């Protein structure tokens, strides 16, 4: 039954996200919406020699979109731009390891999409 997606970890992260907030003098900021529901995620990143020194998010949305964004931050923090640039949707989902229902992929990937937007804007500089 696909309610197993709502694992302890997801509910816990949804209630008490670890990486929520803003970053001082961010080098990259990006925001996007899920148009069908109006959910949004904004991500701010501070780099240090192309290494992600700090990354934070703010947003409104369901347990899936918010907690998966929070988990994504754990994954990319302290990593270098190159490494994170190569992370695909599939790799991200695999690493997070939650059996997201296909119905909820858009939710699960909202933060990932915004993260990529932020990277592009940084690299574009």
């Amino acid at each position, binding site marked *: 039954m696909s309610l197993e997606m709502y694992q302890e970890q997801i509910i816990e992260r949804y209630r008490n996200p670890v990486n929520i907030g803003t970053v001082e003098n961010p080098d990259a900021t990006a925001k996007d919406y899920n148009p069908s529901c*109006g959910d949004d995620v904004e991500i701010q990143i501070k780099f240090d020699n192309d290494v992600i020194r700090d990354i934070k998010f703010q947003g409104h949305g*369901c347990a899936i979109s918010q907690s998966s964004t929070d988990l994504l931050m754990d994954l990319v923090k302290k990593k270098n731009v190159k490494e994170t640039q190569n992370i695909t949707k599939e790799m991200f989902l695999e690493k997070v390891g939650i059996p997201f229902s296909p119905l909820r992929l858009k939710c699960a990937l909202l933060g990932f999409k915004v993260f990529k937007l932020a990277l592009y804007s940084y690299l574009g500089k």
Partner: protein
Amino acid sequence: MDVEKIRGDFPILKRKINNKPLVFLDSASTSQKPQQVIDAIKNYYENHNANPHRSIYTLCDEATQIYEKSRGKVSKFINAKKDEEIVFVRNTNEAMNIVAYSYAMNNLKEGDEILLTIMEHHANIVPWQMLQKKGVKLKFIDINDDGTLKMDTINDMITKNTKIVSVVHKSNVLGTINHVKEIGKIAHDNGSLFVVDGAQSVPHMPVDVKDIDCDFLAFSGHKMLAPMNIGVLYGKKEILEKMEPFMRGSDMIKEVQLTESVWNDSPWKFEAGTPNVEGAIGLSEAIDYLKGVGLDNISGYEEKLTEYALEKLNGISGVKLVSPGNAKLRNGVISFNIGGVHSHDIAYILDEFGVAIRSGHMCAQPLLRRFGFQSVARASFYLYNAKEEIDTFVEGLEKVKKVFGK
């Protein structure tokens, strides 16, 4: 009203979702279709399909008759004076765009005002925003906490510059039915054009344009048992006649020269290109179905379902209605939240029970903000919903609370 018999007419209700029978509580978004409508589409394509108005052969004549008779059916359904007051469109959104582009963009000027309400669907907000680049100002009538419009503020908000008043007849979030006849009188006394968004009213209750005395009424077929992509813009003949066309091209003309054209008569001047005969016959059949059951019966039945549902919901701790109020105020539409749980999660967990409800911003972000929400869950009822389906819905809500440890 024989609900069991009605349910038998809707083939999709036999569908299983996650091994449970489908409980469709999202009719305010789009309605399901009875076999009669599906068969009418099939019969049209299997026996009568042609491009109407264009030639002289039997199929073409049949298609034309089907199309124009459907226009007559719609006309009678909303009690228009003339069939030519019915423009077939794709949906309510397009209907509003016709008024915004063809009427407002050509007639309003800097300093003019358009009066809307805070409870409008995006379809009745975003088209008007376009007018701002001409220096037109949008104003929004506020609502009370029970979801009713602040009627007493209208006289203060309407000014000699108010050229258009456009109001939703029945809110898709609150279920509130606005006093459109009264608002229309204020608008007309002020010399303003009066537009009504009937997307949620026309499918669920008797609507009479002569009685309301609106200048335009917009609604969508897909919310009233008809196929997708057929909708209606009703407009008073004398206004439609004076209006510029919207889409330009074939069929909306009488004569085309290289650099100028003579427009066709309305309503055809607003229907460029090959029209949707399938949609028209589908809508006609849907109207027959609704009339057969009786619009009064439908709204009465929806009220009963709402009453039952509100009673049940009141018993679940943590459930918060967007606007409180009894079944008479909510009219088959119940928007709510469960503290700390996002509407998407509610909808998703309900889906495990076969229950389909809407979640998200309801295409009414300003209204949601007014109540301090970013998203809500909504259950909405229609003639084919059974009382027992509400029990399943409630069962699902209990599960939501469990998953989120409430």
